[in-house]
């Protein structure tokens, strides 16, 4: 496990079970600022559970997860929600955009939830969409754009608050290869430009190839792969 650099997120001996099933038995991981880490492994290995634990969405049964030195388990729901609004961004398999809102409103959502004024939030979101080449879908609803465009809007939403970490769970899982490539290109490039770390869950080597590091999760345990990019 690499230890150099500014460590943002640190998981140590994380264990999580769902009923009688162990999802994670002992997972450890460090994520440094600005790096792209791919969590690889077969289905059911615990990749997504680890990502959810790292993001503070799921509370581990054992072990610790620290974000910039703070134990996530000790944070209140409100504090963890605030983290998701300010420091974390999310891109999931099906985008998880709100169908009732336009793409622009979806991108502005974390800003609005964080108390940003509507006009400011809209301006910043518009700029983000333009930067990612999505200006023309701003007024459309998620149901009116293609899956690839929807995922790119999700990337814009994840980045609009200037997060330190972007969590991406199978971001290309529902896309064809061309759209998948475009989304990955966009996500990793934009994140690197902003010095945001990306924790990426995938089982596709082609997607993992966009990462700086690959961590394999198997039977609930983590193992770092040495890869050369």
């Amino acid at each position, binding site marked *: 496990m690499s230890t150099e650099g500014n460590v943002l997120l640190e998981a140590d001996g994380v264990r999580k079970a769902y009923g009688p099933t162990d999802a994670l038995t002992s997972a450890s991981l460090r994520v440094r600022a600005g790096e792209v880490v791919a969590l690889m492994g077969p289905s059911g290995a615990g990749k997504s559970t680890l990502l959810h634990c790292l993001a503070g969405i799921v509370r581990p049964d054992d072990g610790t997860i620290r974000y910039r030195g703070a134990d996530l388990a000790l944070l209140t729901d409100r504090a963890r929600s605030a983290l*998701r609004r300010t420091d974390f961004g999310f891109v999931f398999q099906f985008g998880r*955009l*709100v169908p*009732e809102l336009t793409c622009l409103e979806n991108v502005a959502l*974390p800003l*609005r*939830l964080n*108390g940003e004024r509507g006009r400011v939030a809209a301006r910043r979101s518009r700029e983000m969409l333009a930067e990612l080449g999505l200006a023309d879908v701003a007024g459309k609803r*998620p149901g009116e754009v293609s899956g690839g465009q929807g995922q790119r809007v999700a990337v814009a939403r994840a980045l609009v608050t200037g997060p330190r970490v972007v969590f991406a769970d199978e971001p290309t899982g529902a896309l*064809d290869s061309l759209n998948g490539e475009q989304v990955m290109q966009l996500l990793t490039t934009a994140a690197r430009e902003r010095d945001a770390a990306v924790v990426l869950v995938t089982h596709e080597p082609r997607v993992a190839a966009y990462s700086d590091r690959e961590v394999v999760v198997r039977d609930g345990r983590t193992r770092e792969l040495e890869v050369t990019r």
Partner: protein
Amino acid sequence: MIRRWAADLALGMRLALGGGGARTALVRLTLTAVGVGLGVAVLLTATSVPHLLAARDDRASARFPAAAAAVDGVDPVFVARRNDEFRGRGLQGYLVQPTGPRPPAVPGVDRLPGPGEAVLSPALADLLRSPEGELLRPRFSERVVGTVGDTGLTGPNEFLFYVGSTTVAQQPDAVSVSRFGGESSHRPLSALELLLVVVGATTCLVPVFVFVVTSTRLAAAARDRRLAALRLVGADRGQVHRIAAGEALLGSFAGLLAGLALFQLIRVLVPAITVDAFRGGLFGTDVVPDWRLGVPALLALPVLACAAAMVALRPIVIEPLGVERRGTRTRRKLAWRLFPAVTGGVLLLTGLGGGGADNPSVVVGVVLVLAAVPLVLPWVVERVAGLLGGGSPAWLLAVRRLQLDSATAARLVSGVAVVLAGSIALQGVYARTESERPAPRDIRVLASYYATSVADGEAFTAAFHALPGLGAVPVRTGAMIETATGERTSVVVESCPRLRDLAGIANCRDGDVYAATTRSSFVPEPGDHVWFSEVRRAHRAGFPQWTVPAVHRVPVHGEDAPELLVTPGALATASGVGLTVSATLPDAGPDLVERVRNVVGWNGSVDSLGTGRDGTSALITRVLQVGSVLVLLFVAGSLLVAAWEQLRERRRSLAALAANGVGRGVLARSLVWQLAIPVAVAVVVAVPAGLALDWLVLEFVVHRPMTADVPVIALLTATAIAAVLFVTALTLPALWRTTNLENLREE
């Protein structure tokens, strides 16, 4: 913090608005708004009833001739009230005879009519101008010199008249008036009327309440996904609740506006209501809610909608990855669901024993029993679904679906159940009171003419007999006479041939007076001075008396035989005569009755005996019947939309079933069973509940035995079932679209 909260609520409202691409959100918003709107309109209308009735009473009393002391600067006017009918519709009016140029002011009348003049209400003037009013015109031969304004009418369609005459002072019921406007006497609703209002309003409102609650839970899965997405991007739990409240708030606010608009529409349409009791119509301006009741009514539905949305979130935790249930799903508990029904039943039984329907515990009991139906129904449906086993694939799919989630279906049909139970109760009470009215052929029409002389009476008799079909109808002329000391006796004035027939007087001569020896009441002695009771007491001093001639004693038999039998010649020397000429009409059709009325004119009355109906009860029942039908339609409409939304939410699983070879017919039958099973349970719960209420009300309030009107109950039940089946049929095209394999695509 306030800005933050406001922003969260605003975001919720924005989500509720959805837009063109988010049909579900708009549908839910519309349904909530419609439900809240209907409820608000019903409640505002119901709370307007006291003011409406009071305003009618005020309007009626404002034109009431007050027999008060003289008023300076006002010349009294003689007024005689006349109540008449034209083809079943009431005509009211006053014969007036001003005594000077400064008569008292009458509401809505610029100038009181003089002799040969009339002032009519607009509706009466319209009727007289129309072909329909041809038969009425002979009664209004006077020159119309004005129109009664709204302030002088109890309703816009009222038939009211003021007819000027020179003979009002001599009318038996005339009063000298220096001022119009009496004490307003507000009649409260009778116990039965109050109960009808309560049963009806509850029947209409409970389904609306149920629907508002249901509408906030429509597309719950989509809402949960939406809220989870908000959690993912950083909304905390408090924010999620505020956002959900904002969503409900918009629907409530829209419903509030819709309800106010609907209420305004009702006020506009109110004048068009024409039921027997209020044929004169109602002024929209009189439909004013009592704001002590109206404000809570305005807030009740929106608050309910928001509360329902919040309660729906209570058993779940919205997390960024989705929704988790708090604890394990447990079976429904019966105890608290039965509590209102049992409490209502106990209140009814104890309340009914101690006073009847005006006892508040009876009213509360009725409300509780009806409100308990939608509470008990989900429990029964769940238990019944749990007992059902496998069968055909369609049946199996339906039963398993209900076992998984019967709440939605039970909620949807509970509105139908309440309407059914309430309608059965209402129909029973109404049918019972209706059945005790005489059949039309048994109704007697009694024509009475007040004659001021024997010749006048004979002229009326001749005119009466000249009418087609009435030539042989017996006419009886009579009077009451009284002495200066107030002793009274009845008199019949007949010719000798008639007296021979009537009393068996063989050697009768015109000018004779006979007294019945078989009666023990007062008989004046020859030489006594008597007055005719029909002549106003105030005028007697100016009239010569009748001096009773020699009285022959004869035996006259019969319960209603008069004390004194007088031949016309015996009254030859009398003036100030007041006789009543009366006849009972054969059942010869309404036109003949109108012709008799024309002959009687304003010097008498033509009354239908035995038709006295409780008009307010009829009005209430009619309004509630219409309300029940509208609510049933509304419930059917909401069932349809809810069924569509259910299909939409389950489109993937239905498409997967279709992809696996399950035929559309199987899916359609499964859909039918999914609604048919809860509906069957609803009918089984609603019919006994309705019959029980019917029995309680009839037995203890109306004090009449209950007879189950099986055809009507069957009709109501069939209507409810048909509504559900019709809705199911309408959802089939949506089912065909849902089973399209395209729905399996994720991208």
